[in-house]
């Protein structure tokens, strides 16, 4: 790999200063499972690597009142092992858990998955579906934005020089609220999503949906919050007619490309299929969370 400088600050302010002051490109090192691959291939040529893992709070999961807070650099294995998260957001845990292999899970983080800005990122759709926010630290202080505001295109984020994602804040689910994430890949494991679909629903006592978010990944330059799909669910139970409308809405919102993993037509079809299946799982889980 080409020469690079490395620093591991122990405070958020020191990390911001290091990122902002770097004359050349500075990259954040979280789990490193995307960054090191890109350093080796030459796709990323930073002058400085700022490792955020020594900053207290960057790794860890805590509750603050009505919110779960997940440190940006928390590895997948820690997220999957947290019983509170598994119970509250099985869909988010599913999304995180699908990233890579056991070895990748030992390091990969949500902040990295988000800021690497692949359209096919697996942890991002369910976090968006849960209305998660990202806390960004930078030279102008902290700001909290919806997670969907971070990714602006493939490999592109809205983060300015000196900024990095410190943590994710996700509102605790209400009674009868739950989620699911499904992904289609050509292989069994270790592949990039052809379609990813996250569904987060809230039901009333009769099983009628009162709130919903449907987020698709890998079928557009960024994740898509499919408003029409959510509207198909709200005010309805998950009967055949609703499922058909949901399928149509999901398919209609896609803007995929054809590549070696799937054609446009195939991705559109699978988006509808995964929306149906993810909704069925989310509804079942939500009803059980009375």
């Amino acid at each position, binding site marked *: 790999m080409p020469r690079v400088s490395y620093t591991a600050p122990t405070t958020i302010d020191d990390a911001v200063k290091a990122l902002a002051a770097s004359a050349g490109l500075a990259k954040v090192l979280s789990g490193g499972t995307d960054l090191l691959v890109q350093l080796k291939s030459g796709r990323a040529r930073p002058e400085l690597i700022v490792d955020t893992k020594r900053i207290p709070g960057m790794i860890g999961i805590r509750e603050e009142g009505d919110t779960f807070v997940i440190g940006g650099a928390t590895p997948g294995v820690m997220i999957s092992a947290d019983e509170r998260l598994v119970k509250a957001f099985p869909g988010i845990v599913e999304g995180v858990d699908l990233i890579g*292999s056991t070895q990748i899970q030992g390091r990969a983080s949500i902040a990295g998955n988000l800021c690497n800005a692949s359209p096919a990122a697996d942890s991002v759709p369910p976090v968006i579906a849960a209305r998660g926010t990202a806390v960004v630290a930078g030279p102008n202080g902290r700001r909290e934005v919806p997670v969907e505001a971070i990714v602006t295109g493939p490999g592109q984020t809205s983060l300015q020089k000196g900024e990095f994602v410190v943590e994710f804040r996700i509102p605790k689910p209400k009674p009868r609220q739950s989620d699911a994430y499904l992904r289609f890949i050509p292989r069994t494991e270790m592949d990039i999503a052809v379609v990813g679909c996250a569904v987060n629903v809230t039901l009333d006592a009769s099983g009628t949906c009162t709130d919903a978010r449907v987020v698709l990944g890998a079928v557009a330059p960024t994740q898509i919050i499919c408003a029409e799909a959510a509207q198909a669910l709200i005010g309805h139970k998950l009967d055949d007619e609703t499922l058909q409308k949901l399928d149509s809405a999901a398919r209609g919102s896609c803007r995929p490309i054809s590549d070696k993993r799937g054609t446009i037509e195939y991705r559109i079809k699978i988006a509808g299929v995964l929306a149906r299946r993810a909704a069925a799982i989310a509804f079942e889980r939500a009803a059980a969370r009375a």
Partner: protein
Amino acid sequence: MSKHHVSTVINGEPKEFLCEAQQTLLDCLRDEMGLTGSKEGCGSGDCGACSVICDGKVVCSCLMLGVEAEGRTIITVEGVAEGEKLHPVQQKFLEHAALQCGFCTPGFIVAAKALLDENKNPTEEETRYWLAGNLCRCTGYDKIIRAVLDAAAVMRGENPPSPAA
């Protein structure tokens, strides 16, 4: 640019090494510390031949910088046996002929040890999914999986029959 000085614990022993920032942990293990058991199969975190256990989690050492090992505890394939006593996973790999060229084997042994440290009774499906990040071009995986499941039985105190000669 001066080198980084890293203090770490490897296979139970305190070790120090000097490295440049861009050297991966795999580079440091092999080139700075002579621990050539971990292999570079792909360099991109896909094949698992470089697997090590870092602070209790199995990771790809090719995707970790050497400097990140500061203050951490690392177990490599060289630390799996206890002196001359093979770990049950290693013993069963031999009995089942779960290797041919052997290049993927260190990674599999480390990853399998990590599995059995966490899950004493994995199903075949759980074992295959856990080891999905370890690739083998020679064996077709089946003997590897049989060996790992057998090793798990031994570690539970059961006495599984020897594989057919």
